[in-house]
């Protein structure tokens, strides 16, 4: 992206750049919705990092599985694009689709030990392999988040990292709003414990 002139305010620059990105996305999405795989590849190139990022945060960076889910999210996006109404930004739509894909994976594991409520049985599961990324502090935090029980982690990630509201989380996870709040409280407590109160 080209830098704008200094005469333009910082916020104006950000707004305009975001709008250009959004309109470019919309044009590409419209083309992809009509079957243009080349346009869809451009969408993939532009959004793979964002989509993969949120999936990793929700399911843990367990190598191939997170990448499988990212691939799955884009295939679903391709299939659903003709029905996309352009009422939200393409990036917002993709982000939500990525969350849904990751949560479906978590739900499918619900009967197994990883989606149980017993966090003691979950220590050590879902460790994020974040070596080489970020500071030591954020690595510790990422690892601590990754060791949370899946349901608590999902609520914490959606609320505290992604900025979702409890109503949205409850709707997506099929739980009561109060349960979402309780899970968040529990997740923060667990996190503080795992970080040794250094957060």
């Amino acid at each position, binding site marked *: *992206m*080209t*830098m*704008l*002139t200094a005469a333009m305010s910082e916020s104006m*620059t950000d707004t*305009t750049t975001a709008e*250009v*990105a959004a*309109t*470019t996305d*919309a*044009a*590409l999405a*419209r*083309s992809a*919705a*009509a*079957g*243009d795989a*080349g*346009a869809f*590849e451009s969408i*993939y190139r532009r959004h*793979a*990092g*964002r989509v*993969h*990022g949120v999936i990793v*945060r929700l399911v843990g*960076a367990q190598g191939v599985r*997170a*990448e499988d889910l*990212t*691939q799955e999210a*884009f*295939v679903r996006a*391709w*299939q*659903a694009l*003709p*029905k996309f*109404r*352009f*009422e939200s930004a393409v990036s917002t739509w993709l982000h939500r689709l990525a969350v849904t894909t990751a949560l479906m994976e978590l739900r499918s594991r619900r009967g197994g030990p990883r989606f149980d409520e017993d966090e003691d049985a979950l220590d050590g599961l879902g460790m994020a392999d974040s070596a080489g990324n970020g500071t030591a502090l*954020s690595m510790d*935090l990422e690892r601590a*988040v990754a060791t949370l029980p899946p349901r608590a982690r999902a609520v*914490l990630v959606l609320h505290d*990292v992604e*900025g979702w509201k*409890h109503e949205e989380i409850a709707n997506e996870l099929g739980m009561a709003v*109060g349960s979402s*709040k309780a899970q968040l*409280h529990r997740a*923060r407590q667990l*996190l*503080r414990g795992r*970080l040794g109160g250094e*957060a």
Partner: protein
Amino acid sequence: MNTHNDNAHDNGVHDNGTQVDETLRWQLRGLRRDLEPQADLWPGIAARIAAAPQQAATVGKSRVRRFAPWAMAASVLLAVGVVWQMMPAAQPQAPADNPMIRQQAVSMALDYERAFAHLQQADTHPEMHGAFGELDRSAAQILSAIDADPSATFLLEQLRRTYARRLQLTQRAVMT
């Protein structure tokens, strides 16, 4: 009932250590960042979408609905045309990096996108989709080019022509 307490928890006000919670929340927000997959996933996606049919777009509910988007598109076309006429003649010596061009491009693109969104609710002929795709792709490329070179005034005219053509084709597809 317990809303206050829940909100208090959300805000970290009454949890153990207000400062600790606030710091933790800021650190958590910092985890929101892009993460590129280690492998290029596109070949796998391309193979799957080649075999995966797209869901059929929702077509117009009735012929009555066809004329509302048409009217909307016509008014947008007129509005865009008027704004275009009112714009100062393309500066032959545009500044090296002209934010106005980007703003005009965005404004134009948003107007047309709104019109297309309305038209999309109406029936269109499938055989036109190829042409739509070409024009949408061109528009996206021009927008990217403007983003990369905001001094290129000719791109704005190119974008307007592309969108006008797209709208014209869409209108034709809806009307017939």
